[in-house]
């Protein structure tokens, strides 16, 4: 089904007599959801764009590329740097704004500018009963009633089908520069990220990629953005200080380094299970070491967000349909140190989303029962 507007979509949900599998462009959905496909692509188009107020409202089916092009024309962008995971997940098609929001998809700039959910200021959605619900609005500051915008962000279509979204925007900076160093080990590399993030130099990206990810030397990279003179000043101060002897790359060369991290390009087209972990940055190297020690010495890792966001490629485990994708090792390592892990790519039998502690699981189940009483929206996906 591909409704042409919100009313049709609501009607389709009301009329559904079995599970629905919701898809925007089908480019970033993870895990298992079964049922009849319900595509949001018909709800497309930018409805309001005010560059002077840094706000945009668009249909949930609007292609991300269309939004990004419109913003670029005014020298603006989505602050949270949404990843393009098509290569990683082996999909093609058009990523949509609704898919980005439903996955709370956030890139390297998360450490400075917040996640997708932090840029979301309003939305409309259709719940599992076919009721249209609005929350938030088109203004940046709004505490009127409960914040369902955040609740729906990252709910992967399990509480409702997003139909319209409002975002706050950011001006594109005049310049960017990346400080880069090759050959540091995990501990040293992440320590460098930590040191950089502890300076007043407004870091907008901090990542370390191991040799298995780069295919050559490990790479430590730290980004600053802003007015040209300010970027030069801050890059210089970092290189004279906590990032001594790092090289500086600018402009497109710098941007390319971050696209690679954002889109997890090093793992695209390589066989194996792919995990995404969010942990306390200074514990990140230990988490990965523990997973290695548990029989996954062949893994490759990319640490973003100052080290705390870990993308892991487990070559053997995830390949075979029968494998456990390393789930035992990954979830144990995270459970011991705090955080959560999601299986982004792997065998169908393994739950993609992290199990929640019982008290929170009960609340989540309560919310699902009320927003989707028939249990038809991406059934069983998150819990």
């Amino acid at each position: 089904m591909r409704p042409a507007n919100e009313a049709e979509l609501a009607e389709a949900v009301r009329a559904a007599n079995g599970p629905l599998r919701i898809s925007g462009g089908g480019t970033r959905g993870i895990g298992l959801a079964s049922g009849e496909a319900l595509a949001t692509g018909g709800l497309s188009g930018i409805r309001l764009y005010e560059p002077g107020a840094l706000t945009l409202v668009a249909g949930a089916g609007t292609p991300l590329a269309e939004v990004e092009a419109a913003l670029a024309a005014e020298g603006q962008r989505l602050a949270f740097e949404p990843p393009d995971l098509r290569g990683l997940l082996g999909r093609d098609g058009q990523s949509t704004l609704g898919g980005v929001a439903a996955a709370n998809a956030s890139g390297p700039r998360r450490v400075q500018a917040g996640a997708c959910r932090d840029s979301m200021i309003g939305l409309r959605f259709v719940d599992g009963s076919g009721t249209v619900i609005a929350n938030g609005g088109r203004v940046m500051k709004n505490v009127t009633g409960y914040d369902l915008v955040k609740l729906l962000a990252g709910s992967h279509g399990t509480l409702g089908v997003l139909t319209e979204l409002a975002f706050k925007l950011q001006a594109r900076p005049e310049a960017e520069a990346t400080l880069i160093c090759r050959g540091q080990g995990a501990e040293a590399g992440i320590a460098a990220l930590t040191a950089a993030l502890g300076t007043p130099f407004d870091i907008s990206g901090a990542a370390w990629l191991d040799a298995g990810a780069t295919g050559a030397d490990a790479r430590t990279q730290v980004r600053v953005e802003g007015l040209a003179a300010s970027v030069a000043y801050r890059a210089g101060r970092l290189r004279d200080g906590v990032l001594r002897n790092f090289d500086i790359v600018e402009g497109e060369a710098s941007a390319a380094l971050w696209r690679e991290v954002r889109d997890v390009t090093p793992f695209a087209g390589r066989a194996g299970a792919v995990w995404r972990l969010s942990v306390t940055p200074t514990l990140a190297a230990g988490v990965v070491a523990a997973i290695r020690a548990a029989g996954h010495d062949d893994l490759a890792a990319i640490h973003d967000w100052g080290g705390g966001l870990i993308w892991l490629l487990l070559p053997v485990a995830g390949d075979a349909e029968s494998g456990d994708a390393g789930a035992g090792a990954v979830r144990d390592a995270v459970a011991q140190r705090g955080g959560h892990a999601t299986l982004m790519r792997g065998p169908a039998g393994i739950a993609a989303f992290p199990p929640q502690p019982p008290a929170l699981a009960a609340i989540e189940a309560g919310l699902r029962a009320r927003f989707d009483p028939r249990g038809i929206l991406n059934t069983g996906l998150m819990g």
Partner: protein
Amino acid sequence: MDMPQANPAVLSRKAELVAALHGLLPGDAVIWQEEALRAYECDALTAYRCPPLVAVLPRSTEEVAAVLRLCHSMGVPVVPRGSGTSLAGGALPTADCVILGVARMNGVLETDYDNRFIRVQSGRTNLSVTGAVEADGFFYAPDPSSQLACAIAGNIAMNSGGAHCLKYGVTTNNLLGVTMVTMAGEVLEIGGPWLDAGGLDLLGVICGSEGQLGVVTEATLRILPKPEGALPVLMGFDANEVAGECVSDIIKAGLLPVAIEFMDRPCIEATEAFAKAGYPMCEALLIVEVEGSRAEIDEQIARIREIAMRHNPVEFREAADEDQARRIWLGRKSAFGAMGQINDYMCLDGTIPVSSLPHVLRRIGEMSAEFGLDVANVFHAGDGNMHPLILFDANKPGDLERCEAFGAEILKLCVEVGGCLTGEHGVGIEKRDLMTAQYAPDDLEAQLRIKDVFDPEWLLNPAKVFPLHVTASRRAA
């Protein structure tokens, strides 16, 4: 302002309740004598007062859980309280409620500069969070003007903002985790020092839920390294429209000031008379603050000056040093106090799309004449969060009611132009009955479902946020 009838069954069991509470908490943590309870009869919305049945001041999550289990079993409503600075009546008691104050829970539990977070008990004041990390070069970004007094608990409940939220965001953007006790006494741990909690974003919905979903006892907050420096510039214009255009041009130019504050003529006049900050007398005044090293600041100010000059400012004043910077902020920071000197006032908090600014200010001016009450406007221009201050005389019969009616019209206007009822102060009791102006019945129902899940008996701060008629059946059940 209607509040629900106190439950006689609860009132009649006061002695039993007090005795049971004494079994759970040290003697000085249970307040039940009438005079002592007066301290809890209102928050900063002082027009409404009602002493609670009992107030308790626990010192730990365990004590909070014990109190909540007791109240839950006895069917006693609970109103959580931080420092009582809410301007929306969020912490207003009912006669049959227990006020659960977290003021004694003010410790720092953990500071971690490498991972850039601090974990505190929720009764700690906002300013003292920054105070705990400042010497090491860090700060906690959300900075409500009430930061000397207000508690992190209240900040989380109201999703409070501050002057610097244009760059750093509001509370929800700086909150990493909470320990929260549900009305049934269950302790929930949500989030932590890592980014973006797993599962549904419960943290996102708890922040801003005005004490209706649970009692927050501990919080993990993001801290940031302090910028090298910051300086404000002040500019005056001879029309509100022009100031509005200037704000829009600064934003479009891609400059990211940490704050853009706006004051109109009535506000400038009142603050001048009170604080003598030396502001120019003009129709509209902007204070724009930028951050960075000296050279970075100079460059940003040069660009802002270039933009401002295109709008023919009547004044453009740079701060050469700390002292001049302080003087530029002086008037703005004393604006509320200045108003309080000359009059009683009601502080509104609607947000509008920045582009509607001239229209909204014109309409407020017209309505001011219709209602016969003066208004001074001071607001966060970068994000459209307005604080019109309506001046009235509390001793004059009918003035408060007229003021409230006028305020309601202004807030409806905010909604009409695409904005909202409250940008940072919260709904509380003050804007409760206006919620239907912003939300359709289905939109409200969706919010009530959340409360149904966290607090099925509707015992936690039950008379707030939603119009009473909308929640009546749930509260009665």
